[in-house]
């Protein structure tokens, strides 16, 4: 009897430590990635790195201004297409979506969020690039928008559902039309949470490489023309990382550090914002 109890107790302790061990094991790569990024990337940070264009092959120096500007434009385009559609679609799902159509939309959005980003690239290539006969920033922006859409839509829906019905009822009781109640009261109440969801979607889009490879393609020049190929941070990191030049490797690490800092800041900000009352997990 005592023996069996001791054995059970032992198993309990072993299992607890094993689970804790798994957590620590998972943190090893995270710490290693962040450590290597800091050590190898920080040295590459300089004024030139952020403000200069890439130098021709075999010349050292130069920077990635084209990639920083390009990423900003591409993510901006993604937001311009993705956010309005996503938020309003989410409004529909939360306010009117208790029907077959709503179910179908939800299902499609969930499936869409699991589609590999490279196939989104193929889709946009056949749709936009082949029609325009060239790689373009516009195509890249559309690809990013498609990737952001399901996240934004579903987050908006979830957050609007958290808004208490009494707010809606109060608005309607005052004789305010439903659409104004939704836009002015419900959406405004849910806004901080929706902003969080959008920030997470932006963080994801900023790091996407695969769908840009054959839509925005890449460019070593500073260009803001939307119908022309455009460079971006992730694509340039990729190109530099697989290149044989040491100086490019150095710049790839620096760019990677910049990208991770951006992504981490967005993630942490989003996390801090969800701490606001009423929206805890």
């Amino acid at each position, binding site marked *: 009897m005592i023996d069996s109890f001791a054995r059970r107790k032992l198993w309990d302790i072993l299992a607890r430590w094993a*689970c804790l061990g798994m*957590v620590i094991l*998972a943190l090893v790569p995270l710490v290693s990635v962040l450590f290597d990024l800091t050590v190898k990337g920080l040295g590459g940070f300089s004024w030139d790195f952020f403000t200069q264009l890439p130098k021709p092959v075999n010349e050292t120096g130069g920077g990635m201004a084209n990639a920083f500007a390009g990423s900003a434009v591409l993510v901006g385009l993604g937001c311009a297409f993705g956010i309005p559609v996503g938020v309003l*679609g989410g409004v529909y799902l939360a306010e009117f979506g208790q029907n077959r159509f709503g179910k179908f939309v939800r299902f499609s959005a969930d499936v869409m969020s699991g589609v590999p980003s490279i196939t989104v690239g193929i889709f946009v290539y056949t749709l936009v690039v082949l029609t325009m006969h060239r790689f373009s920033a516009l195509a890249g922006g559309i690809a990013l928008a498609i990737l952001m859409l399901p996240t934004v839509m579903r987050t908006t829906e979830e957050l609007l559902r958290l808004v208490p019905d009494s707010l809606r009822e109060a608005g309607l009781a005052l004789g305010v039309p439903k659409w104004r109640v939704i836009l002015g009261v419900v959406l405004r109440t849910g806004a901080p949470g929706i902003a969080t969801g959008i920030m997470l979607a932006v963080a994801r889009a900023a790091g996407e490489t*695969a769908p840009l490879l054959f839509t925005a393609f890449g460019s070593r020049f500073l260009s803001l023309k939307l119908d022309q190929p455009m460079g971006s941070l992730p694509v340039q990191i990729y190109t530099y990382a697989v290149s044989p030049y040491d100086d490019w490797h150095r710049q790839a690490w620096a760019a990677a550090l910049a990208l991770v800092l951006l992504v981490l800041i967005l993630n942490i900000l989003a996390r801090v914002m969800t701490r606001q009352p009423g929206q805890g997990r």
Partner: protein
Amino acid sequence: MQSKFAMSVPQGRGSWLSRLWRAFAGTGEVNPADRIFLWVTGLFAGTAILVLGAMTLQVFRASLPSIRQFGWRFLIGKDWDPVLDAFGALPYIYGTVVSSLLALALAVPIALGIAIYLAELAPTWLRRPLGFTVELLAAIPSVIYGLWGIFVLAPWLRDSVQPFLAARLGFLPFFQGTPRGLGLMAGVLILAIMILPTIASVSRDVLEAVPSTLREGALALGSTRWEMVRKAVLPSASSGILGAVILGLGRALGETMAVTMVIGNRAEISFSLFDPSYTLASVIANEYAEASSDLYLSALTELGLILFGVTVLLNIIARLLIWRVGRVPSGAGRS
């Protein structure tokens, strides 16, 4: 235009489409402004269906030339030669399946341990920060794992891990050949790291959706914490956890950049973990922008179609399994 269509739909009976339309338009908004608002937001919501449908159609249409040319032989062909217009997908399918399954085998036990710790065992004050840290693993962009893989992981594998494995376990076919660093092993490790947070966070959400009466019952019967987890919580969460695993598999199959950067990119079928391999997503990433002939482009698109079909199917199965356990926050798989 829309209202005319709505009027023309016969009430009471009708096709699947017309019932869908009535579900969409007929929620009985009286105020005209409200009706317009309903339609506008409904149209935006419908974009999700539209994009998914258009994607299916478009990717299928673009791969038609290749499907017509090769038929089923495309799936079992071993040659990939754009100059001779010979395209076979087998090495890529093999590389994708093998790397994803191995990564899954590596990641699932770890992810389950994490999920159990976060949902059942950890002190309450630790759960949130620890959960957030694990989710950060998913926030780091793929290309950065690739960079890290090339310059940190692969040299370590080449200089320490692979020589050690070759010396101790070299008699197995899995550990033979030159230790190169870049190859299947690096790809599997990177994939495992990348799908770990997905499986862990979805599983945690599933575990948290298990009613606490089950836990209380088990504890009241005198079981230890671990017995409670193993005998009361896990069995009722099992289908959801299976869903989480399938979701992870879907991610692994479609993961592109990191794998492309470390897996070696050579289309050969080999049993050794040291040898380079190639995946569907990688070959698309490497060759799509440079595809010279229409058939070449179409063959690459068909690789994408295979990938698309399989991942969509896996996602549908996973969602259904997860929904069975209970309402789990939908963004969970995405993080």
